[in-house]
């Protein structure tokens, strides 16, 4: 059972465009959603996160939109740059000490100059 799903699996955008990455989850107990960025050969690095009490979180060019009722969220990367080319993982956990962070299937983004 896949608890966290992401779409599309891969995405290509032109430099300057907005990339939109989608995520959905099944477990109603999830209330914390970090997004990680991973480059080949490296560990995942935290990009931005949101709590379920919010419906939007913005940090520079990165914005999370969250819909609790539909159990969906999305990551928007505005003004995409070639350096944004990476795999992005949506993750989810319950707000309780040290709970397991469950990762989605990932979206690989390629930004063409």
């Amino acid at each position, binding site marked *: 059972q896949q608890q966290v799903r992401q779409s599309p699996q891969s995405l290509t955008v032109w430099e300057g465009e907005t990339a939109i990455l989608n995520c959905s989850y099944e477990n109603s107990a999830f209330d914390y959603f970090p997004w990680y960025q991973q480059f080949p050969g490296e560990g995942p690095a935290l990009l931005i996160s949101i709590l379920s009490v919010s419906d939007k979180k913005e940090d520079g060019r990165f914005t999370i939109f969250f819909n609790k009722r539909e159990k969906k969220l999305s990551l928007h990367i505005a003004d995409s740059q070639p350096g944004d080319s990476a795999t992005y993982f949506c993750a989810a956990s319950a707000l309780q000490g040290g*709970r397991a962070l469950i990762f989605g299937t990932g979206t690989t983004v390629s930004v063409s100059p």
Partner: protein
Amino acid sequence: GPKVLQIPSHQIIDMGQMVTLNCDPVSNHLYFYWYKQILGQQMEFLVNFYNGKVMEKSKLFKDQFSVERPDGSYFTLKIQPTALEDSAVYFCASSFAGGNQAPLFGEGTRLSVL
């Protein structure tokens, strides 16, 4: 900034042997995690650890797997015996508080079981 260090970066062993993967978490972190990733695909949760005890483990955390952190030293993942399907990159992570603090990940140890 703070880093999670993993040693070694690459380990090659024969099937059936024992292997220990070492993780040096951030010094004031209290929660520790192991994840498994195959070929850059999904990060799969294995186990989390707090106050000397396993908190949760997934179905991937087979009986051949064990974790410990003796006396505040390395947080280790031991596999005994190893199987071919254990070949993957294993990531260690740590966090100060659970829940709303995203774990900080290391660079991973690539395990190749021959």
